[in-house]
């Protein structure tokens, strides 16, 4: 059980690292969104693993489903922001979104 837990969480950790890398290092707004998606994937895996390990997948499934729906809305809104920014600035570089300082 313990081993399985660490086995699964190590993959979750890998996904988190990849996602955070995307958030931190890329300049492309859409790729930042992809990073956010990957983070969400990690969370999904972690939740399912938790349900699996606790033996309560029945209780966990509705949670994951709701979470997926909620995250889709978030991503859609975020994509809307990126598109609107692109319409304003004609670029999807994150440089367009670093003017507020101080």
């Amino acid at each position, binding site marked *: 059980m313990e081993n399985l837990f660490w086995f699964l969480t190590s993959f979750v950790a890998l996904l988190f690292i990849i996602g955070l890398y995307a958030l*931190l290092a890329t300049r492309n707004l859409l790729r930042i969104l992809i990073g956010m998606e990957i983070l969400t994937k990690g969370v999904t895996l972690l939740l399912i693993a938790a349900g699996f390990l606790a033996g309560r997948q029945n209780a966990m499934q509705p949670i994951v489903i709701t979470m997926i729906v909620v995250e889709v809305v978030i991503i859609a809104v975020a994509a809307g922001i990126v598109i609107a920014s692109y319409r304003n600035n004609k670029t999807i570089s*994150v440089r367009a979104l670093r003017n507020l300082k101080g």
Partner: protein
Amino acid sequence: MSTENLMLLAIFLPIVLAVVPLALVKKNALAAGAVAIAASFANLVVVCLAYGKDAALTLPWAGWFFEFTLRNYQFSSFILAAAALFGALLSVYNTVFLKDKAYGWLFHAYFLLTLGFVNGAILADNLLLLLFFWEGLLGLMFGMIYLGHRDAYRTATKAVIIAGVTDLCMMFGIGLAVHLAETATMSQMKVPMEGLGGLAFVLLVIGAISKAGSMPFHTWIPDAATDAPMPFLPFVPAALEKLLGIYLLARVTLDFFKLDGGHWGSMLLMVVGALTINLAVAMALIQKDYKRLLSYHAISQVGYMILGIGTCTPVGVVGGLFHMLNHTIYKCCLFLTSGSVERQAGTTDLRKIGGLGRKMPVTFVLFIIAAAAIAGFPGTNGFFSKELVYDGALERHWIFYAAAVLGSFLTAASFLKLGHAAYLDKGRGDASKVKEAPAAMLVPGIVLAALCLAFGAGNAFPLHNFIQPVLGDALHGHDYSGFHFKLVLVGGSVAALLLAFANHYFGAKSKGSGLAAVDHIHYAPGLHQIYDAAEKRFFDPYDWARNVGKAVAYVGFGIDRAIDFFFNKVVVFVAGGISGTIRALHNGSHATYLAWTLAGLVIVIVACMAGRL
């Protein structure tokens, strides 16, 4: 009406009536003034009815040391009565002075609010309640200074910042004292004077003496003298703040901590007192503005009170409290004369006025009486209280006595200069159209000047009725009224006065002949002239004395500016630097913010795992 209700009335009557000027549809200063007069006289009646009665009142309040506890007894009712008296006199004066001012109605509202808050602070028997009223006064002070003119906010801000910092000290002091005494009720407060108790003492004293306007928390007062509306000066710095500050100081030293003469706390107070006397008066000596000069004296005289209370001898304490009362009377009167001059002559700049004595004879007489009182001319009230303070100081160490006498000398010199310049000199400016001030502005001054003389000649009355009952048994049956001082003391004071006269006479003569109208000592020059004076006639006794005075003035000026520099520049620079750094760190990049977040996450998690959550 029971005394309990009278106490409540004293607090809430002015505060409630203050709403009237605020609610006036047409902002008429005269109508607001009428309300102010009515309210202040009603207040006077109320506090007179409550005078000297013992009463306590506790209303259910928040709990945890927060209790709405009021206490009326000899000391508080005396301070209350004094404050109410000045409030009543000033309300009359203000009404005339502010008649045509656009902000008049607002000032009257502030005036009444201040009166109510002061009554609250005096009657409070709970330290936290006291703090409540105390802080409320801070806001009112800001409001009143702010009314002066369009750039007065600078001064108002400075005043609030200085007072705010010292009030913070006082808050800590109160916190410590409440912690140590395990009660916030002032009448039950007993704090030991060692360890943290000492710190609490110092912090509370800082709060009290800064309210009274002592050095080094004084720098806003002279600025307020130039910027604030004139009626603010006799009301707040000269009267109420002295009463309140010295009241708290006396409560702290005599009640809470039971300070005795051998303690370092007493020495501290005396040193502060002596320094305040001399440094402030030295600054006063070189001022060229009527109000500003007076305001430095308002600082200087606090020194006598602190010195007197700091001696911890019955005679010194009686002297200090008596001096507080007297100072309020004559300084109020002096500020009123300055107000009359400002209103009639249009300015208080001594370089632009002169020869007003003939045009404004009543004002001049009032000035002479009050100035004699502040200088300690025998027979006036100031003389008696100063003698008592000298007596106490001499009992402790001759050096404090010497400092006090030196201050007395400089006080006399500066008032000779002021009187000469404003009322006797001829020719500067156009004085031909100046008339005597209206009667309503003179009456309060006349009352006060009469009090100066009355409390001098009949000093038994205030001492027996107001001051000595405060100390009660601590006096061991002594009576300090009448005229029974040691000859040495009186001789010293008289000598100081004579010296001041001589100094003034020779100064006026030697300089006055050369220049058109002015005797030069009144216009104590800027810094370069100090060096000029040092070059020539160094051994001339007169110049020598003058140079000593100037040197003291110079040092005082330096200290004054240094404190000013600290508040104006260092604080601003440090805060600005921190602020700039923080702002530079917010570079707008999402990656930076994300990196902070992750770093914070790691730190918090590490801290949690280390059991620090």
